[in-house]
């Protein structure tokens, strides 16, 4: 029995170590050919393992049996990341941005993935958060942590202005409402002098918590972490909390209700006849999603100390939404992975910046053709770990059949 556990642990540590080493070297190596070669090597290795049934099965089993151990290992690696990357603060900053994207994507996943409200105006709610935090910090000098919360709440409040048009419209027309909103908001920001006009808001004080300014370096055990690590850890804390909340909601009657009113998978009429107040639940999903998006926006403005209208466009909304489509609609791990990729890849491919949108478009179209359910398809809801006693044969991936 003990032997078994030891073998599992070793397997998990090996897999995680190899994949994280690959991840970090992909981040740090600047030679694109080398990066490409590494990715291909990783891909070939994964393919090789997936072909050997015995090895694959034992790895999958190990991860399934020891998911608490895996979780702890992942946690240590994620916490330790700034220590490994302390020589390149730029990548810590990018990873922090990736966490903000993950928060946004989780919010859109509640709206679009779970409840089926297509929000193509996410950048506007991001902007509401960012501008609220920026304005309060500049005009009133209110503390940044308070501004984070305020930005998130303001984004919920502004979102409620759209309740009536969203409830009157259905499906694609709802998407039009949100597009109209982000365009109008962009124009407002560009023209309203009291919001800084086309210049935006400059000189927002950087984040600080209880007197600890985030522009300071962190010193731990004689190691110096660059100031960016401050942002990384706070974003990680917030992102972790929000992801956990998202996961718990998904695994509850709330997530189920959202799926039931989702016109894409379930349907509203039948949900109504099952006793669900569909309009109310759609707006709850919309509002909670906006909280996530607004919080990320507010954090962004306290991180970059600068926010301007070009950050808040329809195009940006499309990128946010595509994280959900790419990762897997209603799949929380998938959405997180896709958001991470969508931030890291364009940074890595800076040399081909003008082609990035083209690459991205092709990738998205291929994805929709070849893997419609996303990078990590949504699973059947098992609700709690206690439910794991269900025999393996009864658990199958969501909708893994031909007739849909």
């Amino acid at each position, binding site marked *: 029995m003990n032997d078994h556990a030891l073998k599992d642990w070793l397997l998990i540590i090996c897999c995680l170590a190899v994949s994280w080493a690959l991840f970090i070297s992909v981040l740090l190596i600047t030679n694109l050919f080398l990066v490409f070669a590494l990715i291909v090597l990783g891909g070939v290795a994964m393919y090789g393992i997936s072909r050997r049934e015995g090895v694959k099965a034992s790895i999958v089993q190990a991860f399934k049996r020891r998911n608490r151990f895996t979780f702890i290992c992942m946690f240590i690696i994620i916490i330790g990341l700034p220590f490994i990357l302390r020589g390149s603060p730029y990548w810590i900053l990018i990873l922090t941005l990736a966490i903000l994207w993950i928060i946004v994507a989780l919010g859109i996943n509640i709206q679009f993935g779970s409840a089926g409200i297509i929000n193509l105006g996410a950048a506007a709610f991001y902007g509401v958060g960012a501008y609220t935090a920026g304005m309060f910090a500049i005009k009133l000098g209110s503390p940044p942590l308070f501004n984070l919360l305020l930005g998130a709440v303001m984004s919920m409040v502004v979102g409620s202005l759209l309740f009536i048009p969203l409830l009157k419209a259905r499906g694609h027309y709802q998407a039009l409402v949100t597009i109209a909103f982000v365009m109008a908001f962009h124009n407002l920001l560009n023209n309203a002098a009291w919001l800084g006009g086309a210049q935006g808001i400059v000189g927002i004080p950087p984040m600080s918590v209880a007197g600890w300014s985030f522009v300071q370096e962190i010193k731990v055990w004689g190691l110096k972490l660059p100031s960016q690590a401050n942002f990384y850890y706070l974003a990680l804390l917030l992102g972790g909390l929000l992801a956990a*909340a998202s996961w*718990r*909601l998904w*695994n*509850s*009657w*709330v997530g*189920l*209700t959202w*799926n*039931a009113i989702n016109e894409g*998978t*379930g*349907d509203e*009429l*039948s*949900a*109504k*006849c*099952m*006793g*669900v*107040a*569909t309009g109310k639940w759609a707006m709850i999903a919309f509002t909670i999603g906006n909280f996530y998006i607004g919080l990320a926006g507010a954090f962004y403005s306290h991180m970059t100390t600068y926010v301007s209208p070009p950050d808040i466009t329809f195009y940006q909304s499309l990128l946010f939404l595509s994280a959900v489509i790419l990762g897997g609609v209603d799949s929380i791990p998938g959405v997180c992975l896709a958001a991470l990729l969508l931030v890291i890849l364009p940074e890595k491919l800076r040399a081909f910046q003008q082609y990035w949108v083209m690459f991205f478009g092709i990738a998205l179209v291929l994805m929709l053709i070849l893997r419609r359910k996303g990078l990590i398809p*949504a699973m*059947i*809801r*098992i*609700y*709690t770990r*206690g*439910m794991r006693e*269900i025999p393996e044969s*009864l*658990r*199958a991936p*969501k*909708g*893994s*059949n031909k*007739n*849909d």
Partner: protein
Amino acid sequence: MPDNEPTKQLFRCEKLTKNFGGLKAVDGVDLGVSEGEILGLIGPNGAGKTTFFNLISGVYPIDEGSFFLRGENLMGLPAHKIKKKGISRTFQQSRLILNLSVYDNLFTGMLESFRSWFRDSLIFRSRFKEELKRAIEKANQLLSQFNAELVGKGFLPVSEISQIDRRRLEICRALATKPALLLLDEPSAGMSPEESAELMLDLQRIREKEYRELSIILVEHDMAVIEDITDRVVALNYGKKIAEGTFEAVSRNEELREAYLGR
């Protein structure tokens, strides 16, 4: 259950009317259902049977008339409130959520009875787990009344179970919160005669066991099914009630024969 016997009336509608443009889809229908009664609703295509269901389940707003459940006027209430008052329905075309599990689909029928929402699912997880456990027990009990095999398939996506099991699941879902009145809209549509006979047997069996007081309004084209399980039959044509009574009496009705056979 003959008409003149003094049984408690559960459902009643008066002069129910619905116009689509110039067309009177349902035209002044009066109808009553007693407790524990199975009422068959028949009529040719386009007679207004499904529209009638859509009216009394709150899907369409009513133009004229009103309807009552246990004497309470439900006219004008939205669909989800009518369901909470005790009228539950199925649809002619399956409206299950294909990529959710069998349990999840069944749970959507129980949502109104659940008490663990945001606070319990985010913070007090153990309370949610308690409720989940109870819900699964209830679901297993419901499923096993129809088909014991379905219990083992609880965590399979609905897209992977058979057509007849989907019908069963849909009826289970409508029954999950013990409604007073169940509206079944052509439950045997798209099934073979054997399958539909099996489904009707299931239905009769669970009524005898668990749901003695349950009243049902059944829309069905298969006259053998109607003859078998209904207590009383109402016939509609062009939105109007043209006949009412026992199956034998109604089937002798000239107007109905004409409507069906087109003489």
